[in-house]
């Protein structure tokens, strides 16, 4: 077998690998059914709980930073969606990074003729969590219905683009942080940070005001994950936002890939 292959064939190989990986993740779970339903129950509980706890704020005011209760619910629904995507696709890989480094599994991964970034970042899925994004979208729908707003096709299209960009963005940010694990940081702590950052996406960024709002838009792009897609559905955002979102997520994705390669150079002791 030679190293030169048609690019099309490459992509096919990666898709096949994903299929095998996901099947393995599923086979791995002996108590799949029980855990899946336990998780759905837990997620529903959190969802309702979160929606109710927001009401405490609205005991004292009708709108917060220009957002009504039902609009905040749309943002919160997106928070659960994005968080669910994180739990289902990203966190299970992040959680294993420390083990890869400590047990030397990373050495094995590096001797494989497949892109190492692919192997460390997409190898596992959280099989019980796949319903979480759907539950989140359910809350989004409830928020919209409660406000009596029906987004038109344009708004939905815009939303789809923004959500896709948000997923890529989340992947990029997570990979950036996951990569730090190579320099002896525990990935358990790293996961806490990512969850903490995501946690700020529970509310519209304008809730935080001033410097923090700027920070969450420009530095830690949480605004692109929940606030902007919600604004698209509520008819508050236009195509420029989508262009910006796609640009930002593509940039972060590339930066993360470059950073991963840089980290590997350090891991293998290039230049030291």
């Amino acid at each position: 077998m030679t190293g030169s292959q048609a690019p099309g064939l490459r992509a096919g190989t990666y898709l096949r690998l994903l299929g095998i990986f996901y099947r393995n993740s599923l086979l791995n779970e002996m108590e799949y059914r029980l855990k899946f339903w336990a998780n759905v129950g837990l997620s529903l509980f959190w969802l309702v709980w979160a929606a109710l706890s927001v009401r405490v704020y609205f005991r004292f005011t009708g709108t917060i930073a220009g957002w009504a209760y039902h609009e905040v619910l749309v943002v919160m629904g997106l928070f659960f969606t994005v968080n669910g995507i994180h739990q289902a696709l990203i966190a299970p890989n992040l959680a294993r990074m420390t083990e890869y480094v400590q047990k030397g599994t990373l050495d094995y991964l590096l001797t494989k003729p497949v892109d190492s970034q692919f192997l460390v970042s997409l190898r596992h899925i959280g099989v019980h969590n796949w319903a979480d994004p759907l539950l989140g979208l359910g809350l989004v729908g409830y928020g919209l219905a409660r406000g009596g707003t029906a987004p038109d096709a344009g708004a939905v299209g815009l939303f789809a683009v923004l959500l896709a960009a948000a997923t890529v963005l989340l992947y990029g940010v997570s990979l950036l942080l996951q990569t730090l694990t190579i320099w002896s940081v525990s990935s358990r702590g790293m996961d806490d940070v990512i969850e903490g950052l995501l946690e700020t996406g529970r509310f519209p960024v304008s809730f935080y005001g001033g410097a923090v709002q700027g920070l969450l838009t420009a530095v830690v792009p949480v605004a692109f994950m929940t606030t902007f897609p919600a604004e698209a559905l509520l008819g508050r955002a236009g195509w420029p936002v989508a262009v910006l979102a796609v640009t930002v997520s593509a940039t972060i994705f590339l930066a993360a890939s470059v950073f991963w390669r840089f980290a590997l150079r350090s891991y293998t002791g290039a230049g030291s």
Partner: protein
Amino acid sequence: MTVEVDGLVKHYRVQRREPGFGASLRGLFARRYHTVPAVDGVSFRIDAGEIVGFLGPNGAGKTTTLKCLAGLLHPTAGRARVLGFTPHERERAFLRQFTLVMGQRNQLLWDLPAMETFLVNQAIYGVPEPQFRAALDELVALLELEPLLDKQVRQLSLGERMRCELAASLLHQPRVLFLDEPTLGLDVTAQATIRDFVRTYSARQGATVLLTSHYMADVTALASRILVIDGGTMRYDGDLRALVERHAPYRLLRLTLDCQVQPADMAAVGDLESADGLAVTLRVPRAATKERAALALSSLPVADVAIEDPSVEDIIRQVFTQR
């Protein structure tokens, strides 16, 4: 030439840890490092189809050298080439043609039967189905994997796991095998199984093997040529038999006597190596083995005699102490 290594150097930067409360707090902000030379100018060549044993005490630089050859470490200086590739560039074409097995590490999926790992590796290496089946059948037969295939990896014994590990690493029929302590922790039978397998496999596939092991028996059984490394530098490179002759220009005469003999009476035969009751071991010059044996039979009350080479362990130990 399958493996070429010229003046390979690998230095590690290690953090200096200082004891004490204040120092630990200072370490949060400023850390001090020092350099450890793990491999310090090593050169050797390996031809296609050779099985070479790599010997040395812990921390000698064996694993570091192996990792450089597998592309996991970037050499600090010097040059390594495997199959014409520079390993640390990790070109796909190179990665497809070798395999690395580390005795104390595990690439098998822990909670699933080993077959699942085999299928993952089939996809990763892009092995076409007929080729995969053929390779798998051969490995299953050689390693006697049939009864293990549908068991969870976590339920396998260490030896069984190692056999599966080897199979997983060889499904893509690599031309070069780097085996780092493949028999570590295994019992004697399991060690022998692995050893026989490596010999058969290399002969059948014409594969080149570089093997490190703590167990001298692995090396003496498999490799005709050995590399001895210590403190990051090469101590010996050559034929196993030549090593024995060079460093042990003597053989051992093991005698079982009928009655006690004074040591002075045996001096003419050889130097006394050890004595345990009536069992006596004498050291005789290699070239004069026959004459001395005859002398022993004629001058001493011998019930039984055996002629042996000193163990390779002893010889290697001698190599290490001659710094």
